[in-house]
């Protein structure tokens, strides 16, 4: 029962802060609310006994990505109010679209019948040890490749951010 | 092994040639390379004739999970066409020496690449590989025409490219469909594709898809309109490659893929297709009568000739099939000869218009003699190569339907009309300001033409060698239709 409460708490927190990301007028508020969402999701990971992911998630998202967002907002002084939101009809259409998408997603997933072979709370696959084994054994090449990807992204970001014309 | 060498050698040459800078070196290298390639072709021919009849097969897995293997080989029909390709290439290269093409290394590299692709088309025994080479051949052709062509080349070449490309996409669809009908594990191997049993409805669709691809390439009326434009817009070398060898791809495709795979549909719809082809013969011949551009005239005559070949193929008789095979070779030789002649005239007089020419026989008699020889060959005079082909084609057609043969036979009248008209207006009569001071053939030019003439008469007088090479395979193809 306890886990269920935790689940509901985390879910509501995530959804609330997600909505607030959109509702805030200032980008800086959005960023902060987004950080909250991420923490809630990290909680979910813990709940699924995926500790490794939880840690990585916090480090990458809350640590790295959010900092990037914050830096961007602050350094460029972007933290202005949105002068004009999109017109109302766009919002309505967007709402309808998003709602329909949700309905359909839920509809699709309803068909899905998972045979839970494992209690998610006790599964061991999420532990660092197990994941590490798999990551360094079965997925060694992609893992190494991802470092190349990072390198590329880094070079790209630096090049793009340079002041002078390339 | 020789088969794969035949494919790889031009590829290697086409890459190596890019490092040369000097034009002369490039030309000599290209010529020498193509001659070596011809030597390899001859070696393959001898090996095929003397020892094995083993199809000179080369197989290695490529995309094993997809059932695609690099399977190359040559049966008699492929062998003849490969021989034609390797034989014509040095001649085409030699004939291009008079032109100062810009960026020669790229030009000759493309020519050699094209040779590789063409040989690939003729030797691949795997559906997907066949398709890949089929499209690969289009790329060098496109660039040769689009970069070194004449006026309005971009538009013309684009039309040519899109037209033939769209046609071949249908073939790809057909091949993939067949692929999924092969028993598990799926395979593109031609034996496997032959073995697919299709119901009549499917056959018709597959037939249509193949037919569309080949009919555009051949080309058969009314899908031919890209051809006269392309021939007249392409550089001389490009026209020779297109007309001499590339047209044969479509006909070869018919023999290798369409007839064995959709045999019932060919029998059912062949009549309609033949009517198209035969209409094309008369239609193109009639149009050729009034053409003023020599290249266009030859283009229309070529439509008539290949129309006859296609009609013969579709009649599914042994004679016509044999005739088609031999005529493919002959047509390649003759049309390259004619294009060389036209090119020589154009170089000397700076015009291709029949109305501007005349009296060349007086100023350049050797040129006139060679022109006459190729002309005779192309109007199928007995003892020249085309006669053997057209005789067999018409005989086969006659077995299928006497009416078809009679109408298709009109080509021998019409071809005489337009060819002699062209000869008369260009070679005979009085010389004018264009033709007064032209010089006769040089030794290099003769060197390009003489081998062609030798082949014209060799095939014309002793066709046995060539017929025997192809006969067993023709019979085998026909067996699929029974």
């Amino acid at each position: 029962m306890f886990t269920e409460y935790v689940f509901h708490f985390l879910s509501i927190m995530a959804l609330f802060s997600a909505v607030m990301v959109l509702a805030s007028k200032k980008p800086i508020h959005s960023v902060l609310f987004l950080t909250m969402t991420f923490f809630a999701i990290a909680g979910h990971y813990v709940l699924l006994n995926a500790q490794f992911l939880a840690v990585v998630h916090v480090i990458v998202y809350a640590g790295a990505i959010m900092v990037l967002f914050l830096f961007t907002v602050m350094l460029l002084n972007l933290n202005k109010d949105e002068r004009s939101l999109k017109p109302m009809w766009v919002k309505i259409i967007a709402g309808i679209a998003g709602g329909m998408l949700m309905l359909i997603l839920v509809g699709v997933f309803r068909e899905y019948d998972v045979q839970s072979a494992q209690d998610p709370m006790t599964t061991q696959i999420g532990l660092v040890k197990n994941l590490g084994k798999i990551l360094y054994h079965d997925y060694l090449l992609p893992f190494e490749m991802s470092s190349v990807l990072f390198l590329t992204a880094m070079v790209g970001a630096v090049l793009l951010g340079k002041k002078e014309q390339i | 092994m020789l088969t794969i060498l035949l494919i790889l050698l031009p590829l290697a040459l086409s890459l190596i040639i890019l490092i040369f800078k000097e034009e002369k070196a490039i030309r000599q290298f290209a010529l020498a390379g193509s001659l070596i390639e011809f030597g390899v072709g001859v070696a393959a021919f001898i090996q095929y004739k003397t020892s094995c009849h083993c199809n000179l097969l080369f197989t290695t897995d490529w995309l094993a999970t997809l059932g695609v293997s690099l399977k190359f080989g040559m049966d008699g029909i492929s062998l003849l066409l490969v021989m034609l390709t390797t034989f014509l290439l040095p001649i085409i290269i030699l004939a291009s020496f008079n032109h100062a093409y810009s960026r020669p290394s790229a030009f000759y590299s493309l020519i050699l690449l094209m040779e590789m692709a063409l040989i690939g088309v003729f030797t691949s025994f795997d559906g997907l590989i066949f398709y890949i080479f089929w499209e690969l051949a289009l790329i060098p052709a496109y660039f040769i025409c689009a970069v070194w062509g004449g006026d309005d080349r971009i538009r013309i070449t684009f039309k040519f490219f899109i037209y033939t490309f769209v046609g071949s996409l249908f073939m790809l669809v057909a091949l993939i469909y067949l692929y999924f009908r092969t028993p598990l594990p799926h395979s593109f191997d031609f034996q496997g594709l032959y073995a697919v049993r299709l119901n009549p409805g499917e056959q018709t669709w597959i037939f249509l898809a193949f037919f569309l691809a080949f009919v555009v390439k051949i080309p058969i009326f009314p899908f031919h309109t890209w051809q006269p434009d392309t021939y007249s817009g392409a550089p001389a070398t490009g026209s020779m490659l297109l007309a001499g060898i590339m047209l044969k791809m479509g006909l070869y495709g018919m023999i290798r893929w369409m007839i064995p795979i959709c045999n019932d549909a060919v029998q059912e719809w062949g009549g309609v297709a033949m009517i198209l082809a035969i209409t094309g013969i008369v239609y193109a011949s009639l149009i050729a009568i009034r053409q003023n551009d020599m290249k266009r005239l030859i283009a229309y005559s070529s439509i008539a000739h290949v129309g006859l070949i296609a009609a013969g193929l579709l009649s599914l008789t042994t004679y016509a099939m044999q005739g088609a095979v031999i005529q493919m070779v002959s047509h390649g030789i003759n049309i390259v000869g004619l294009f060389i002649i036209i090119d020589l005239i154009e170089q000397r007089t700076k015009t291709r218009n029949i109305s501007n020419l005349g009296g060349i026989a007086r100023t350049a008699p050797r040129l006139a003699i060679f022109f006459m020889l190729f002309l005779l060959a192309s109007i199928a005079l007995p003892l020249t190569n085309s006669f053997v082909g057209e005789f067999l084609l018409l005989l086969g057609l006659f077995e299928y339907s006497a009416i078809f043969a009679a109408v298709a036979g009109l080509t021998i009248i019409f071809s005489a009309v337009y060819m002699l008209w062209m000869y008369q207006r260009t070679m005979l009569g009085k010389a004018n300001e264009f033709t007064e001071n032209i010089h006769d053939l040089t030794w290099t030019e003769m060197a390009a033409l003489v081998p062609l003439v030798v082949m014209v008469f060799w095939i014309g007088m002793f066709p046995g060698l060539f017929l025997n090479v192809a006969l067993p395979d023709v019979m085998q193809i026909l067996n699929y239709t029974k």
Partner: protein
Amino acid sequence: MSNLATIPIEYYLVFCSVLFCIGVFGVLIKRNALVILMSIELMINSINLLLAAFSAYTNDPAGQIFVFFIMVVAAAEVAIGLAIVVLIYRTTHSIDIDVLNKLKW
């Protein structure tokens, strides 16, 4: 823990769908490129979570590995994306996507 305490996977499905749709909604209504990027992060996260959930429920580590890789890609994406935003801002002094519509027909 007993089976009674287990959270049905449908909960995760619904939760993630809702989170995803919020992200979609955000993408649709916002004009600020930064916030749109954030919304995309939201969507990615909802998917990550779902993957992890399925992985846990079916005891298949591949799902979690993929989450890991998605994070890698997302980090790279954000880095590049923000760099582009910065660049755009520098050249146009705006990150309003309704203004950034030069790339058309």
